[in-house]
């Protein structure tokens, strides 16, 4: 890897950029949910409360970490770092400043699938290592929910790959220069968004972290530094999945550029990417705010009986179109 790549990976549009985007997403989520509920959201820290998520992160990092006696300290120390690494690396494969992403592999869509399952695996491990009664129930629910939404999500992700004829994100983005895949495969987009709600544990699928039933879900026994990173990672996965949706269905960073200057072109591409990213993110928050929580068996039934067949149908349609 040449030094420019390393700098890109670390700064822009790599880890640092996406971490700030994650904070911004959390702020946006709190602000829009508040406005839709008739209240204000964060207002005090920073202009318009923009620094609130950052303040929360540092506050949590400064607190004492209390670990239960029977918990596995090795996993609880290194687990959050691994949990953070998964979406962070995944994001490096998504093109932001142009049609090229920082890291490239002809099969990187499969790597995205791996990132998603790895996240859930780490969450399960962390919940199990916490050894609390509530965490145990929560990871049971988490695994059930994961197995339910995985199949429709996989099929929904493969649909754009079929339409584009390529298994790399770059290739899919490039193939959408004529028409966005949301037009050709709207059902797949809808299924992807709903499965994203389940992956991120947001209503109506926030069963694993149902705070009013099982306290904190699998994050119950976390505090201090570990909790700060876990929350950051959740926000980062939010960005990751929205970026994936934007790239697979909305054409990612692609779009018409009006200059021939390479740097300005990069600016255009970044703007397109950000706009689409926020559009998908906003769609997800709007859905999350409007719905109550369903029970785990109802969620499982929804995914297996409705989503999976729909996604298969959509895939068949896509193959036909192609």
């Amino acid at each position, binding site marked *: 890897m040449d030094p420019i790549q390393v700098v890109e990976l670390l700064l822009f549009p790599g880890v640092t950029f996406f971490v700030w985007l994650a904070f911004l997403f959390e702020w946006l989520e709190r602000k829009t949910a508040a406005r839709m*509920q008739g209240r204000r959201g964060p207002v005090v820290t920073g202009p318009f409360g923009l620094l609130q998520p950052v303040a929360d992160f540092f506050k949590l990092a400064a607190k004492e970490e209390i670990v239960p006696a029977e918990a596995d300290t090795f996993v609880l120390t290194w687990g959050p770092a691994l949990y953070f690494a998964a979406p962070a690396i995944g994001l490096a494969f998504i093109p932001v400043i142009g049609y090229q992403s920082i890291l490239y592999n002809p099969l990187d869509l499969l790597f995205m699938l791996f990132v998603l399952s790895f996240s859930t695996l780490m969450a399960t491990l962390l919940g199990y290592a916490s050894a609390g009664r509530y965490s145990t129930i929560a990871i049971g629910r988490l695994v059930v929910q994961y197995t339910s939404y995985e199949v429709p999500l996989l099929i929904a992700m493969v649909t754009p790959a079929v339409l584009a004829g390529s298994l790399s994100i770059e290739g899919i983005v490039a193939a959408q220069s004529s028409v966005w895949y949301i037009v050709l495969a709207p059902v797949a987009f809808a299924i992807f968004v709903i499965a994203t709600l389940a992956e991120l544990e947001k209503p109506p699928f926030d069963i694993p972290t149902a705070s*009013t039933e099982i306290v904190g879900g699998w994050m119950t026994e976390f505090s201090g530094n570990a909790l700060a990173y876990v929350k950051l990672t959740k926000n980062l996965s939010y960005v990751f999945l929205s970026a994936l949706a934007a790239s697979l269905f909305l054409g990612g960073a692609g779009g018409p550029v009006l200059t021939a200057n390479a740097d300005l072109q990069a600016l255009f591409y970044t703007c397109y990417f950000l706009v689409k990213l926020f559009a998908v993110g906003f769609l997800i928050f709007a859905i999350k705010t409007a719905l109550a929580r369903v029970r785990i068996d109802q969620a499982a039934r929804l995914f297996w009986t409705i989503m999976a067949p729909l996604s298969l149908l959509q895939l068949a349609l896509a193959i036909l179109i192609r």
Partner: protein
Amino acid sequence: MSDPVQSNEQTEAGAGLMQYSAENMMPFGPVHPSLKEPEYFKLYLQGEKIVQVVPRIGYVHRGIERAAQERTWVKNIYLFERICGICSFHHSLSYTEGVEALAPFEIPKRAKYLRELVAEFERIHSHLLWLGLLGHWAGFDTLFMWIWKDREHILDLEEAISGNRVNKSYTTLGGVRNDLPENLAEKSRTEVNYLEKRAEYYKSLVQSEETLSVRTKGRGRINQETARKLCPVGPLLRCTGIARDIRAEDPYAAYGEVPPQVQTENDGDIASLLTLRLNEVTDSCRLVKETLEKMPSGPFRVNFPRSVPAGESTFHVEAPRGELFYFVKSAGGSVPERVKVRTSTMANILTATEMLKGHTLADVPVVLTGMDPCFGCMDRISVVDVDKSKEWTVSGEQLRRYGIEYYRRK
């Protein structure tokens, strides 16, 4: 009269619970995010299914009945209204009406109408609070925020009348403390009309919203037979189809002249409780408007003697949660000899535990909230006799028999 206090193991063994091992026991409480007040429920689980619930109460026991024996009659109003924040006015209302029954003269009519007005305000506020909380516990925070936003209208009205939003201290022995302020009648009508429209909207929302109705339809179902055996009170009873409402059957304040329409639902589950309480909100809005229309003029307060004549009286009111029952005994002095409070949550708690059987852990907050629990009201079961230094728990059967005897003699 008394059995010695049984240890918990004995009681549980008697109920055949020792077959369930401790690993299957999930504690719910005393401190839990979904409980407003601490209460301990031992949930016996098989997998995620609940097979038995054993409640243990007493975490909010504050010795209020004992404290009442040392305070004068008027000071006790402030003590009793702080038993509960949500049904605070009904506690002070029941107490003052109970004490006034011991005295030989009538309180003015205007005072009765004013008491009904504020009581209905409190009913609206309590039901809206419950609805919002149910939304929150079902994971529907948006509904929670919206309903509590609308509840602010009622709280502002209560503050305009009495000076405080929660512990209103509006009644006093002999009437009420202030008259209506100037423009309150106008303002109340406007706010109440607004709330009626909102209640209609919320009713359509909770009935049609799929994610909410899968959590509430068919959950916590009780039928009329179980209801007759376990004797719940209030909306929990009315949602099974049994139409009992103390405001209609045994009117107090001005309910004789401005009666409520008793609402019932037939399904006996949480969804019907939602509809029922929203219907009650609409009915309370109608009552507020009618009370304001028919309000007679006149004094709002009469002087009440410092020492209350000797005697015993009982009084019950329809608090937002159900029947609230006060027993007041006077020995002719300036302090009461005994005041006993039996709140509605005390009557509802066994029904709620019955409702939970067969459900999963995920349903516990929603079903438990269905009875609108107010554990702060509830914890008053032990009786301590200071003179004889004996302590015993009063059983439900004893209270029931005593109540029948008392009313027969009345």
